[in-house]
């Protein structure tokens, strides 16, 4: 396997669906960060066959885990300190999404008041259903990778 420099302090996003790392890079706005970011594409994986990996040199706080959880809560998040994995964070569907998805209901107030934050709340965790805070329009988080 291609060797990428070892991470001493940072976060490794593992088990990303192959080919999707660049999409995640965009949604997590990793391009705006000053720190070192490495993207590994099509790495071999026993579990997935092929997978993508993203390594970010910096504290976990710089990543929006809500965005990550919404995009794909099956991604593994490893926290690295002194070159070792010290914590594996479980992702879950966030209870609230702010400005991540947009309401498509043309009758919703958010369609005309542009300055409003687009807020969705998790209405049904089992069926992964979100509802717009304003009009309650339903958004099914169908399978994963909705935003990919």
């Amino acid at each position: 396997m291609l060797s990428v420099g070892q991470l001493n302090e940072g976060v490794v996003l593992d088990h990303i669906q192959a080919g999707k790392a660049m999409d995640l890079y965009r949604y997590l706005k990793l391009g705006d960060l000053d720190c070192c970011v490495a993207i590994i594409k099509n790495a071999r994986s026993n579990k997935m066959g092929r997978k993508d990996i993203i390594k970010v040199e910096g504290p976990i706080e710089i990543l929006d885990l809500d965005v990550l959880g919404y995009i794909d809560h099956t991604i593994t998040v490893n926290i690295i300190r002194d070159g070792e994995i010290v914590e594996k964070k479980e992702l879950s569907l966030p209870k609230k999404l702010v400005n991540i998805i947009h309401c498509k209901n043309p009758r919703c107030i958010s369609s005309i008041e542009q300055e409003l934050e687009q807020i969705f709340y998790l209405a049904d965790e089992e069926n992964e259903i979100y509802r717009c805070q304003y009009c309650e329009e339903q958004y099914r988080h169908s399978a994963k990778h909705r935003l990919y």
Partner: protein
Amino acid sequence: MRHLMSPLDFSVEELERLLDLANDIENHRDKYAHACDGKKLATLFYEPSTRTRLSFEAAMLNLGGSVLGFSSADSSSAAKGESVADTIRVISCYADIAAMRHPKEGAPLVAALHSGIPVINAGDGGHQHPTQTLTDLLTIRSLKGRLGGLTIGLCGDLKFGRTVHSLINALVRYENVRFVLISPEELRVPDYVREDVLRKSGHEFTEVTRLEDAIPELDILYMTRVQRERFFNEEDYVRMKDFYILDKEKMRLAGPEMMVLHPLPRVNEISVEVDSDPRAAYFKQAQYGVYVRMALILTLLEVNVC
């Protein structure tokens, strides 16, 4: 500070207190005649709705308060492009409580989030119209003495009728309510009401097409209007609009205690010959609408009358 956005904002216990207060207002009007002296209600109606607006205004005037506001977006600052958030911030400086109707769904919630005074949703598009549901509940409870243990027929446009959906949502919180859903095939209740509300609640419900078949077993018949604006083509509307007409002949099939309700305005779905039937309660329902709005204003303003 509390607002009213949805009929389910109140718990069953809170609702009982509100309806008790409305009944007390009904029976002791004088006691409440000055309860809101010096207080102002702002009616912010971005689309016309004479009935609801006047009902709110009558409620506040009955309490000794005053009203101000506008009755269409054209006569408001919205015509100049002001946001709902800014409008309510300003209105909060002028009034003590606001009732808002807006064609866009969620607009009253936006107002509530930016308001310094209680906001009542007086109807937001096809979304919610909580004071209509409160009116319906007060009418049923006042006329029948209870909200549970009733067989309720809902007739007409059950697909687009938000009053019907709200009423079902409110009534499934009571025990032994049986629903009879009477509609043409094209206007049956949406799946989410059937599956997520009715079936999940465990309440018994049936869906039928013929009003004549259902009417003998009903305690309440809630008629609704088929709304022209919900149809994409005129042909479908014309075909549906007179699907149900409640007349004297059908009323003969109903029990002596059955009550007929309607959120009004009606078009053809209730023949005027039914108006003189003692079981026709839809104009009384409009009166209950004023009482429940009075009770709501007092509750949200936290005014206690001894």
